[in-house]
């Protein structure tokens, strides 16, 4: 399927779908026409399409002549683009002259001097069409409008982050000021005990009176943990935070927070 080429050249705000067939171009429009080409490939494609040349079997003499004519015009009006265009001139002339050489008996298709030029022209033409298609697609900002209703901005404040180092630093400052360093050192074991003290208090707060053995999960907890748990109970009792009761010897021992009855 042949896609119609549109040149999209603007002169005085008007878009021309094709260039005039005759060679006469109004002087003030000449520059605009020539500038409208995106480069030598673009100009070549235009010439091929304008003169209905077969892109797969380009008559090199004709195309080269046409091309040189435009390049001469560009030189006259001193367009900056000359370099790229001159390079293409040289290439076209080279292809033309190679085609004049006597052909070997068997000519493989890839040996056609025009092959590379044809490949580039076709690739560029495809890109031109792709560019036009992209340009025609609806875009956010013009054809697509995204919902953007208002909302009352409330500053959702993310709480500060605290690192372990900062916590330790704070504790170290406390101790320095309290001068506790000399007579109070806390080790891992003591920290565990204090953690278990909190756990037990929390449990007693929730359940009221709890049987001593119910506080120990002998099946799942290892011995060190059970010991720490027991030490925590002793410490709680020592600090007067829990009450331990037993009706008579060998009957169940019950624990309750020291404030349980009054709360």
């Amino acid at each position, binding site marked *: 399927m042949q896609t119609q080429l549109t040149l999209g050249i603007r002169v005085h705000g008007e878009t021309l779908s094709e260039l005039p067939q005759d060679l006469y171009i109004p002087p003030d429009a000449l520059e605009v026409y020539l500038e409208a080409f995106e480069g030598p490939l673009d100009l070549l494609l235009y010439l091929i399409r304008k003169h209905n040349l077969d892109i797969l079997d380009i008559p090199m003499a004709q195309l080269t002549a046409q091309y040189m004519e435009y390049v001469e015009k560009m030189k006259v009006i001193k367009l900056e683009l000359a370099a790229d265009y001159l390079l293409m001139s040289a290439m076209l002339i080279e292809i033309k002259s190679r085609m004049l050489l006597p052909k070997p008996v068997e000519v493989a298709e890839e040996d056609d001097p025009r092959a590379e030029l044809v490949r580039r022209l076709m690739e560029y033409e495809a890109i031109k069409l792709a560019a036009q298609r992209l340009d025609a697609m609806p875009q956010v900002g013009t054809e697509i409008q995204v919902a953007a209703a208002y909302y009352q901005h409330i500053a*959702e404040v993310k709480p500060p982050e605290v690192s*372990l180092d900062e916590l330790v630093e704070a504790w170290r*400052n406390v101790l320095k000021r309290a001068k506790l360093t000399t007579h109070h050192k806390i080790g891992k074991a003591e920290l*565990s005990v204090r953690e278990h003290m909190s756990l037990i208090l929390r449990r007693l707060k929730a359940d009221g009176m709890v049987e001593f053995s119910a506080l120990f999960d002998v099946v799942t907890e290892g011995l060190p943990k059970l010991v720490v748990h027991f030490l925590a109970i002793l410490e709680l009792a020592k600090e007067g935070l829990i009450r331990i009761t037993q009706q008579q010897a060998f009957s169940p021992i019950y624990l309750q927070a*020291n404030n349980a009855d009054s709360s």
Partner: protein
Amino acid sequence: MIEPDNISQMKQILEAALLTAGQPLSLDDLLKLFAGRMERTTLRMLLDELKQDWAQENTAKTLELVRVATGYRFQAKPQFSEFIARLSPEKQPKYSRAVMETLAIIAYRQPVTRGDIEQIRGVAVNPNVMRQLQERDWIDVVGQREVPGRPSLYATTKHFLDDLNLRSLSELPPFEDFAQSEIPLEN
């Protein structure tokens, strides 16, 4: 494009424009939508109707159409603001020294009362400090000490351990670790 020829189409155009505008649209703005084929009084009436449509639907609408100084806009109902705000939270500055030290005392010496904390720090504990830590769900009350006034006993929570990426308090650096580090290296 086919110009709208009935009320409901006109209301739809208004609605689509107001939902995507990103700012309030004045009556003059909105008239542009209809390329001069709209009376101001009709426009006002349509806006009133649109407002009603969004207000009275039994299906719970999340937006409402309101008029502000510079024009009309759709806005999220107030109850959604707090959720939407979560998309771009502002980070709060660091905790004060009082908060950090209080937290450290509770972590290392729990369960403790406010009195204990005051005694260790040598200054009164601002109730605001305790509230910040409780709101963060980092400390809670685990009981009362049986002394006059029955002060609350505070301890750190499971949530605190999670946030500091600890499995248990015993993973807190024990005090000896940094007591030793206080010894000058060159001696």
